[in-house]
């Protein structure tokens, strides 16, 4: 029992519940099914990106370029859709994923083959990919009336009164869960992050895994590129700007150690949910707009402190009796 209570995921889940109840007292409208379903929809893209970022963080790296990758993939397919509105939406989704994956592979090659440190590589591509959006779009926006109906329809599809975005996040959660816990690839990611030297001894090819991890991160950034422009019906140079930091905080809140090799898929999702909840709850309880950013930062920090304190690594015990 004690083990369950001290489990990070359980603590995180409790924190989410407490916030939900507290906000519910202040504003009962916030905890209606409709409102909760809106929060879930609103958090879905964050969940997907946090899960793919987790893969990268597990091997002691970080992908700072996800938001720029998302924006560039989103812009490219938006531009294409204005020229070829007759193409089916699946075509655009697939294309967006391909573009995202390509950008991810470029990150991976730079890190694994050219040996440019991951922080430098992705900081660089963060600017490069964002800069390319200006280049391809001439700095112009694609407005909602320029998209075809088909392009935007999928996002409004609902099942059991929950949105397409939510269900997609569930599917991605299951895929990543199986990938990390039930495939050799996933387990080797954990071993590579946990003890890179020892992983080499058992024959894990580090470069291959770096490139694979960044490709996956790119793939999901590309997927979210479509989701983002379709959901907000707009593609501009500014979409998702700075979103990579939200994604990384979701991972950190979720207990994915930036030291690598530690973290659960469920924890990652809960981390994203907590951040999504705070972002939606603060306006609902009438907190001044000027304060929202600082308060949400403080709550995130507090959650991390509670979470790590309760599960702090025990000191090595020398004496049994004391």
């Amino acid at each position, binding site marked *: 029992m004690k083990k369950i209570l001290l489990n990070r995921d359980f603590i995180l889940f409790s924190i989410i519940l407490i916030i939900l109840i507290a906000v519910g007292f202040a504003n009962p409208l916030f905890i209606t099914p409709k409102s909760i379903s809106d929060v879930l929809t609103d958090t879905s893209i964050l969940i997907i990106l946090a899960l793919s970022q987790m893969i990268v963080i597990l091997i002691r790296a970080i992908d700072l370029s996800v938001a720029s990758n998302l924006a560039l993939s989103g812009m490219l397919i938006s531009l294409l859709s204005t020229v070829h509105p007759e193409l089916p939406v699946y075509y655009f989704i697939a294309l967006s994923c391909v573009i995202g994956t390509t950008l991810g592979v470029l990150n991976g090659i730079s890190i694994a083959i050219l040996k440019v440190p991951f922080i430098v590589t992705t900081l660089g591509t963060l600017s490069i990919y964002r800069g390319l959006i200006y280049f391809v779009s001439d700095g112009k926006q694609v407005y909602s009336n320029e998209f075809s109906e088909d392009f935007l329809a999928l996002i409004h599809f609902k099942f059991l009164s929950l949105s397409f975005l939510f269900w997609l996040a569930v599917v991605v959660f299951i895929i990543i869960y*199986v990938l990390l*816990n*039930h*495939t*050799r690839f996933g*387990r*080797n990611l*954990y*071993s590579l992050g*946990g*003890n890179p*030297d*020892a*992983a*080499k*001894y*058992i*024959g*894990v090819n580090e470069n291959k895994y770096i490139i694979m991890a960044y490709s996956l991160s790119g793939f999901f950034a590309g997927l979210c590129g479509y989701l983002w422009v379709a959901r907000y019906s707009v593609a501009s140079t500014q979409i998702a700007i700075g979103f990579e930091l939200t994604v990384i905080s979701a991972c950190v809140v979720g207990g994915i150690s930036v030291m690598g*090799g*530690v973290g659960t898929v469920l924890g990652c999702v809960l981390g994203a949910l907590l951040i999504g909840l705070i972002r939606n709850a603060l306006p609902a309880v009438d907190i001044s707009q000027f304060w929202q950013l600082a308060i949400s930062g403080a709550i995130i920090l507090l959650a991390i402190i509670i979470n790590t304190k309760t599960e702090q*690594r025990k*000191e*090595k*015990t*020398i*004496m*049994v009796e*004391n």
Partner: protein
Amino acid sequence: MKLELKNISKNFHGVKALQNVDFQLQENSIHALLGENGAGKSTLVKILCGVYQPDSGIINLNNKQQSIPDPSASLSLGISAIHQESVMFDELSVTENVFIGNHITKSNGLVDWGLMQDKTNQLLKDLEANIEPNEKIKDLSIAQRHIVQISRSLIHDADIVIMDEPTASLSQKEINELYTIIRNLKKQNKSIIFISHKLDEVIEVCDEFTVLRDGELIKSDTIQNTNKDQLITYMAGREVNQIFPKNNVTIENEIFEVRNLFKKTQFKDINFNLRKKEILGFYGLVGSGRTEIMKSIFGITKLDEGEILFKDQKILIRKPSDAIDQGIVYLSEERQQLGMTGLMSVKDNINMAVMDRNSNFYVMNKLKEIKNSSAMQEKLNIKVSYWSQLTQSLSGGNQQKTVIAKWLSTKPEVLILDEPTKGIDVRSKSAVHEFMGELVEEGMSIMMISSELPEILGMCDRVVVMYKGLIKDILNVKEASSEQIVKLASGES
């Protein structure tokens, strides 16, 4: 013949680590690989593991010539090493560590956790080990970790198992259990290469031996044809009592004392004193609490209870700089992580702890710094190619000397050395010993943690023997026998 190495040579930047070494491992045999630190044992093991490639020579496995280009090749040839330093995954479960890199998958490509769990359970039961497959490695004792590593090599179907000092940090009871496992492995037709510094245990467990010294093969024979004294002579190449410079200084009055030191889960009832010009040794198994006590005395970690007296005055040490101001310094075991900054020059490292003394109103006095560092470099004979050379490019011995120079710059009266000669070559080692003798003559008092009994017996005046956070006894080295010390340290008496 299971494994045969012929004429193996390996150079590192002109240093001959191995020279034309032959090594033969019979089938079904436990073979001791012996030699002092730096004799070439670990180089040989790393060649077998595919970490290093030999410059010349042949490897025959089952009478067939093989090359071992990388670690996974070594594994697939059936060679598995149980390393002294951890190659385990602390955050992963026992089951996963056993199967790491070798996960069993179901027909649909997914990992078969159930089957792996069962197999691990069976394996641990066969080894008569009391370990839960679900436990994380970080929660296991060192002995249990060894057993997990052995299980791993069994899963890989290794028929050559290399054990690098497997008993180094185990208690006597755990050692006996490990011996049983090793003998069982032999019954299962495995060949074992056994590296150990404990010669009694080598004679008890092994069938054959090979001694290396300075990268050369000295002797290879069956254990029956030798004895302990002979082995020592092979290894040292000289009489044992000549290794350590005995210092004949008159020990003066008590200078430092601790009373009833206590830290929860770490140590308790710690009482000892140190006299001027004395070398006080601390012996015990790795993880017996020696380092933890010294870290508390130096102010790195907090004591729960107890008092420290220096020159008959009670002193309060809250942080390392308090200790340094009093004239007490601590030289860490992990010199690369904690003792020096590899990307700084030797000069800057030497001056790091005395910046306040070498500055006027917060502005560094370069002349004072250069004077201090060149004096220290000369005194300790630190070899640098140019004055701004980075510390990380020095040899292990010179790095160690740099760290010592850094602390000596503070002009301490009490010097705490934590494993000062761990992992450095024989020549630098004796230089460190000689230097310790000189320091004591100059009036310094030294506390030295060491896991090498000969070093304790050769250098110290008294030895504090520890076991699981308690002081078992404080012995006068001249009157103590090594058997007595080892027994105390393994908690037997």
